[in-house]
């Protein structure tokens, strides 16, 4: 059953990115399944208090990644998607982002053991 996503409109991260990231989490962790209907762009914009284009951009981003189907005149639906084989460049890019994040976590006093546990749990999809 689809849940709800929360975004912080005061965050320096753009709202489009936050929406796309939050929806991707729902998709990857299986709470949104192929065939499920997403809220319409207008509905989501009113609920979030954002411009229609902000939500539409997030949906387009996910559509470009193959997560959702966007067809004119009907609601966005979750598409069947097979994960593409990870390229070496992509792995290097994610490693850099993870390194920055892990450094920030350690700087905030979170132990290496705890960070490893959290990452392992996230990778296995056992955190919600």
């Amino acid at each position, binding site marked *: 059953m689809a849940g*709800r*996503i929360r975004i912080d*409109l005061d965050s320096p991260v753009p709202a489009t990115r936050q929406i796309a990231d939050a929806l991707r989490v729902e998709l990857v962790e299986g709470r949104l399944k192929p065939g499920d209907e997403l*809220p319409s762009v207008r509905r989501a914009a*009113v*609920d979030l*208090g954002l*411009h229609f284009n902000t939500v539409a951009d997030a949906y387009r981003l996910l559509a470009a990644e193959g997560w959702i189907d966007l067809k004119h005149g009907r609601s966005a639906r979750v598409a069947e998607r097979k994960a593409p084989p990870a390229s070496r460049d992509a792995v290097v890019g994610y490693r850099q982002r993870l390194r920055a994040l892990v450094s920030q976590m350690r700087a905030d006093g979170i132990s290496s053991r705890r960070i490893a546990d959290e990452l392992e749990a996230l990778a296995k999809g056992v955190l919600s």
Partner: protein
Amino acid sequence: MANVYWLLLFETVALTDLLLMRVRRDKLTAMVVADSRGISAGRIFRAAILAIALVGGLVITLAPEELVFPWLLPVLMMVPGVPLALFFSWQRRAVASLDAERTPRNAVLDLAGEPRPYAMWLAALPPLVTAGLVYFLATEWNSLVLRDPPPVPAPTPWQDPGFRGLVSLLLLGVVWNVYFGILSLTMWYGVSRQYAFRKSQVHVAVAFSWSETLLMPAVFLPLWLRVPPAGLLLCAASLAVSTWLLVEFGRRAHRDWQTADMPPSSYRFYFDRNDPSAFSNRGTNLGSPWNWALFTAPALFLVLPLLSFW
């Protein structure tokens, strides 16, 4: 009689200016406004507008109709603009910078769908019911027994002042139907789903629309026509149902309005074209097309006097 319309028009325009004191500054507001409540400029402005509304109203009431329009009314309509201009010039000086106050901006999107309430379709029917009644009256007017028949029967009902007066009053109900129809759409499509009160607002809008539709004929038909006892009973039943709708759904809406999930600042106004919400926890968004429709619908009342010239 026309003076009443001019009076209402003038008072509406004059007193609407008081709402401008409620407009808050916003990062996208073209006209930056400071909080004016509880300060002397705000009090002076309010007193000036109320004085203009009172004196202007008296002048319109007492002046002969041919003087009111088209001579006196346009002049009187411009008078509230003077304190308004002074007030805004004060506001511009009072606002130190364009930095709008920051409000907590967390937003939640429920990914589950939501079916449109069937009750919303009922909002489309009241204008049709009234149109049907007007059509019936127009076709049967000559066979109906009037309380105050004209000395010389008019060739068509539309040339009969009595018929036009009755239809004008019924059309007042249609304006309310339009208003409540727009209100129900605004509440459903223009308000975030995190506010549970929106469903009861849709219901109350539809119920009030039907209440108006039942009320107007129930009150005015017996005043214009000699209605047989069965018709009077029907009017009484219509009046009772209308009152029940008003009281019951008003009570439910009031109960839901008291719950904690209503926007805490719905009495405030802001202008943000990037925010599609008509109402949110920031207040009432004057940049939303839903609110443009909602706030201009009562202007249809101003069209009704034209019916008497028609």
